[in-house]
């Protein structure tokens, strides 16, 4: 569709009839040239030695386009060009914090990464050295457990909402409450998990699986929402064709609906994992922190990357340097994990989504 939109109008050449229909236009080279100049100035302003004010100069250069257009092409075209400018500006503004954060994390985290950093825990480490092995394992285990809890619940709920309960009052309520659940502050989820586990294990309980429960509270609504959207996109003709062949409803769901929506579901689930893997507050409350490796979700404290990062920054040792470096390294590793997850999700949706769809 966008190919229709993107095709530059004046390509049909200088036919006199066409031009009389088109009205007066800016010279063809003007918008791209000014845009290029503006981008160049902005880039020099951000990365070069001259100063950030060049960015403003660049923007002003770009702002010439709509003004010129107003003089030549009239107000409608000028408005269109102005909006193009504004929309592009919005995107550029967004890129700035992203670039800034990524640059900070990568430049400060990358020097820390080494084989020792990935294979050592913090047991018996003071000052330099040590690594994030324990926190990495903790994060993977707790997140995997959270996913193991959330995905079945979330998926089955979505199936209920779309396949069984659609249109019923109960489904309406569940949809609404799932939306409310997306708004639960993460620290409240942590407190809830803590209170729940205190009932069974007594005060002061610290358990990896508690962290998984807290993360599930945050993750389930995201899974439900994305699975629901994906199940909705499955064409009803497929279901009906299956029913017509005498296939029971549940087998239709398992064999027809889910495979069709699979790519989208995997994408949604992966994004949900990415959403919770960086949570700090709930894990702080219920999973705690330890310096040693712990593979048992049901016994004792488990370090996780976000909590490790938080404490490495908040209570560094003396000198604070190595601890803060480790924090940046851990943040970078977390970012890489999430990037890979995102990438995997996109690849899955690219390779497995039915061809010909959007």
């Amino acid at each position, binding site marked *: *569709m*966008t190919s*229709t*939109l*993107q095709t530059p109008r004046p390509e049909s050449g200088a036919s006199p009839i066409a031009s009389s229909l088109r009205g007066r236009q800016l010279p063809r080279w003007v918008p791209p040239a000014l845009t290029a100049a503006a981008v160049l100035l902005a880039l020099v302003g951000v990365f070069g030695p001259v100063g950030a004010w060049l960015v403003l100069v660049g923007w002003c250069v770009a702002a010439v386009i709509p003004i010129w257009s107003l003089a030549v092409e009239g107000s409608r*075209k000028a408005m*269109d060009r102005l*909006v193009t400018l504004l*929309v592009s*500006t*919005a*995107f550029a503004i*967004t*890129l700035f914090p992203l670039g800034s*954060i990524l640059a*900070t994390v990568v430049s400060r985290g990358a020097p820390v990464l080494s084989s020792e950093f990935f294979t050592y825990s913090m047991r018996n480490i003071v000052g330099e050295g040590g690594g994030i092995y324990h926190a990495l394992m903790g994060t993977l285990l707790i997140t995997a457990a959270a996913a193991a809890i959330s995905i*079945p619940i979330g998926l*089955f*709920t979505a199936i209920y*909402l779309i*396949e069984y309960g659609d*249109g019923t009052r109960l489904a309406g*309520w*569940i*949809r609404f*409450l799932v*939306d*409310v*659940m*997306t*708004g*639960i*502050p993460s*620290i*409240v989820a942590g*407190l809830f998990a803590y209170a*729940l586990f205190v009932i069974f294990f007594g005060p002061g309980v610290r358990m990896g699986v508690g962290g998984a429960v807290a993360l599930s*509270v945050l993750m389930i609504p995201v899974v439900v929402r994305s699975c629901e*959207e994906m199940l*909705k996109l499955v064409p009803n003709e497929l279901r009906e064709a299956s*029913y017509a062949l005498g296939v*029971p*409803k*549940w087998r239709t*769901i398992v064999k027809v609906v889910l495979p069709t929506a699979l790519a989208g579901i995997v994408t949604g689930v992966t994004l949900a994992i990415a*959403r919770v893997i*960086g*949570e*700090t*507050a709930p894990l702080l409350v219920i999973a705690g922190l330890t310096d040693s490796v712990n593979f048992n979700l049901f016994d004792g404290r488990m370090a996780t990357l*976000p909590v490790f*990062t938080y404490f490495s*920054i908040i209570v560094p040792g003396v000198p604070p340097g190595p601890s803060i470096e480790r924090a940046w390294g851990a*943040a970078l590793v*977390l*970012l890489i994990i*999430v990037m890979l997850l*995102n990438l995997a999700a*996109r690849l899955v949706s690219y390779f497995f989504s039915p061809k010909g769809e*959007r």
Partner: protein
Amino acid sequence: MGCPPGTTAPSERLTIVTSTQSPERRRTTPTRPGDRIFRGTSLAAALLILATLAGVAVFLTAEGIPGILASPDEVKHGTGFVDYVAPLVFGTLLAAILALTMAVPLAIGVALFISHYAPRKLAAPLGYVIDLLAAVPSVVYGVWGISFLAPALVPLYRWLEDNLGFVPLFAGPASATGRTILTASIVLAVMVLPVITAICREIFLQTPRLHEEAALALGATRWEMARLAIFPYARSGIISASMLGLGRALGETMAVAMVLSASGVVTFNLISSTNPSTIAANIALTFNEATGLTVNALIASGLVLFVITFGVNFAARAIVDRRKDFSGAN
């Protein structure tokens, strides 16, 4: 609720067809145990979610009520609960609303850029880049806010104080470190931006192609096409996306706790170092050293936050449902 009406309507219609006809058919064939089990499992999962939510609410209420009822001398903050929580509610709303004011227009712009302005080949990678922002742990946002953003904003705050000091928002004195509620809101805006952008983008992309091409065929410019074909269709989706972003902004804990110089006052002054605190940040900052009824009071403040997010979602839902009837999509 993010689902635009255009996609639900036809599928709903079709579902009705099947559901009205299939029971009659099924009566002739015996219900299979597999079907019953599957239906039961999915219903149980849905009910489990309700139970979890009820659990959260019950837990917050049960633990919170003693804190609400506690007399001033039993808790550390030494005031009644309403006096304690009111400035926090103010700060929470102020920070979240400021963040949304910045994030929503930007997000709509970015989503529009990705879906309709950027070259088609670039759209997917650009979306990926923006989604990355959602993945950055909030601790990293906090550190970035302290060490990079706040100092960078100090000159701006000085300038605002000198030139716009007569506006109460910028009355100053400007913070020397830049760790103001405005800075915290900017960090929050960056954090909620990808959430809003992702949803808006998906909805913009789902705009019926016929509507867009009809607009263009009538001679509309690209902007007019967006205004006439995309926005009416996407309005409810934009609102629900903003509400999701608002929910995220209201509940964000660590980044605000690290960036904001919080004093628990009520003020509209955005650039001084004396700022209102937020509920979530306040919980994070005081929970560790809290004992006894103070803990209950903190949990009660969590309940207040929960009720606020509940209300926000309720409102969003209501708006979206109402808008559905008027949206130009159908």
